[in-house]
């Protein structure tokens, strides 16, 4: 079995969380699963890092949280994007796009 690197690219976890939550409020596991599915398994999220990141983003004011029932009747902490969170997502997306395209240009140039 080849060990493909499934770590989230350093510094992008926050952006991935914000983006995921911009679609609908989710709990921690839901966020992790969604990131995995949409990235088609390229990224796997470590629960420790994810839950800590959620605390951090909440304290930064980008997320709100509340305890609710899930569809399968478990109590879960749901996170929701705030207005400042939405703005932060735009900033981070723009920043990422700018940097990723720069890297692409660099990689594409003819040797």
């Amino acid at each position, binding site marked *: 079995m080849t060990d493909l690197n499934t770590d989230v690219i350093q510094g992008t976890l926050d952006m991935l969380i914000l983006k995921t939550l911009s679609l609908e409020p989710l709990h*921690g*596991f839901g966020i992790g699963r969604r990131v995995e599915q949409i990235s088609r398994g390229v990224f796997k999220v470590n629960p*420790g890092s994810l839950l*800590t990141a959620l605390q951090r983003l909440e*304290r930064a004011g980008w997320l709100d949280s509340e305890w609710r029932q899930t569809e399968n009747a478990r*109590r879960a902490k749901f996170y929701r994007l705030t207005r400042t969170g939405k703005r932060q997502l735009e900033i981070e997306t723009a920043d990422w796009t700018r940097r990723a395209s720069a890297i692409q240009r660099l990689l594409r140039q003819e040797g």
Partner: protein
Amino acid sequence: MALWRQFSYGLRSLIHRSVKDSDDDDEVRQYFEETVAAWQARGLTAEDAKRAARLELGNMTAVREQVRSYGWENAIRTIASDLGYAARQLRGHPGFTIVSVLTLALGVGASTAIFSAVDPILFRPLPYPDASRILTIWNTYQGARSELSFGTYRELAQRSRSFESMTIFELWQPALTGGELPERLEGQSVSASFFQVLGVAPVLGRDFQPSEDVFNGPRVVILSDRLWQRLFHGDPGVLGRSIKLDDNTFTVIGVMPHSFEDVLSSSTDIWTPAQYDTRQITRDFTGATWGNHLRMAGRLRPGASRAQAIEELAQIASTPWPDFPRPRWASLKRGLIVDSLQDDIAHTVRPALLAVLGAVLLVLTIACLNVVNLLLARSAQRRGEFAVRAALGASKQRIVRQLITESLLLALLGGVLGLAVAGAGVRALIALSPPGLPRVDAITVDAMAFAFAFAVTTIIGVVTGLIPALHVSREEVRPRLEQSSRRTAGGHAFTRRALVVTEVALALVLLVAAGLLLHSMLRLVAVDPGFDPSHLLTMQVQTSGHQFDDLPSSPGTGDNARRRFFRQALDAVRQVHGVEQAAFTSLLPLSDDPSWISTYGSHFENDDPQGGHNVFRYAISPGYCAAMSIPVLSGRCIDEHDTATSPPAALLSESLARSQFPGQNPIGKRLHVGPADRPWFTVAGVVGDVKQTSLALNEPNDVYLSTEQTWFADQTLSFVIRTRGDAAALAPAVKNAIWSVDRNQPIVRVATMDTLVAVTEAQRNFVLILFEAFGLVALALAAVGMYGVLAGSVAERTREIGVRAALGASRGNILALILRDGMRLTALGIIIGSCAAVFASHALVTLLYGISRLDWMTYLGVIALLTAVAAIACWTPAWRAARVDPSITLRAE
């Protein structure tokens, strides 16, 4: 906003810790359960799904810890738990804790207090703008500073270019009348530029103007804030008001700021222009303008350096100009002494203060060594504990943090107590401070000094506390665990022994210094002052008022009025019940009377015309020798027959008579004292020498004259009253007797002679008390250190001692073994300390009296004391070792 949220979230989770924790746990559990459910959805059984989830997510406990430990509040929780543990540790070892905290408190407190006292005098800039540009200028007499004359001031001020302004000032003690009792104010008579030189202006009103500092100029005064509050209750309408001083009316033109400190004479409350008659300077060398009684200061021009100014003044002194004639006593042939104001006011106390500062640094060093010693001893005992903690999974980082917390807690306790010690110490220093110590009012606990001492001890504590942690690492756990029970001798034994030897050596240095000072003091107190100071009440009476003015029509009327007043006052005093004898003198021995005012040139008939001596001139009343118990060795004392009309008589001191007339009878010889154009004084008697300025000084050239026969009547005389009972108790009755003659004459400096004698030696006493205190502290600390090392060594050697006992060593053998160990350390410390003391005692030379700094009696005494104390410190551990039961020790292994 985000910061605030961080803070409030953290605070909430800190307060509702369990809620936050259980929320986190729930969230992690839900995550796990969802993962399990997801595996089940793919068709695994409940068991397999759980296993798969664990495999996927890893250790859920670690995840929970990771989530829980998020946030700044967790650092606080760790610190709090470390602190709690540290506090329990310290509480669990009260002996160690108390000794360490006291050591730190003493070291930090004592050095802070001393530095606080020394700093404003020696180091902190004076409270004036650009204070370093203020210089003092003195005449030179016998190589030392001496006052100069107005004529000299005028020449220097006009010829020098390095100064922005120059000023002269002298003591002025006017009598304030019109109140309930006549009182004498402490003032200065100054040139108009005085406050410009200091760089401080009145806060109310204005400064003196040059037009006011002229002969017969307007009578104006500037008040200190203190006097303004006292006399006028801080009334801002004081400007233009008049006060009556010496029967003259002075107008108040200004008030100095509350913060203004006159470092030149800290008790000064009032200033007035000196108003010298400049026309006199070139005409008349005998007038007031050429008396050497002024002090002088100048403020350097911007850009002018001190060296430049000194060079310029020296050049002026050595090249007289015809425009500025100089009399013989102001020839400046010996040059001028120029110093910065700061160094000048401190120059008499500097050696004492530096010695004290050095002593307290030694105490601080010993305190630090002791703390290191205690911590090393403790870490040796705790090696097992750390090994266990490391084995149980504590990271090295965690253990280090724990140790730092413990050291810091210890340092904090020591520091807080040290601050209290410093506060009490500063108050005690101010209370003990000898008169004449400059800037006493500026002494407060110095924050910088405290921070410094606290930082030094803390850093040392932390670093030392860390040493055991550096040895802890997982690889070593097993052997350490085994060792901890066996207690083989620790690796720090050598370091700790070296520390104790150093402590003993430093303590010896301090004790030798204290011993030398104590010895000096004992010798000094045993010095015979030449008179009997017991049951002797003294007070100074100042005559002031227009009734003592000389009328131009009949010169001498003022002097006669003064003499009459003093005669009548003396008669009244002699009537007071309890007075055995009473007399007065112009110069009171061992008082703060400035002796240079009473120093005059004398010239005997047999001297060659250029020869002569400087002598102290005592103008005395009949009965002075008897009242003071000064022995009359030949001839007679001054008595009632020496009147204005009888031939002038003089008494010589024994030493003067002997040096002037070796092998001859001095009675009947003739001399001049002061002006040479007066009739000769004839020697009528020889009396014993007295100590004038200090018990430590021999100033044997004294001439006594009758107040009735001197060429001027002294304005101020000191009464000496020999009493039957308690001298101090008679003071009110004597004062009333003097005031019964004239209610308007101030009486000042009422003190028994015993008090005055004590005051003259106050500086020496001050240093002695401090050295004694430091010496004792050092001794105690060294003893504690010695005890600690031996106790530790006995504990570590229990097994060895048990084996020795089992092999037949008697209790006496073992006692001797440990005692010998301790005594060897002591002996080494004493040898090193003695060598150090021989060097260090150089710093004390100026403070010693009558003994050499290498006085072997003192050294031997101190060594005996130190050895005895060390033996006591060794005894307990040795005794404990001797009682080791071999069967128990050996079975314990």
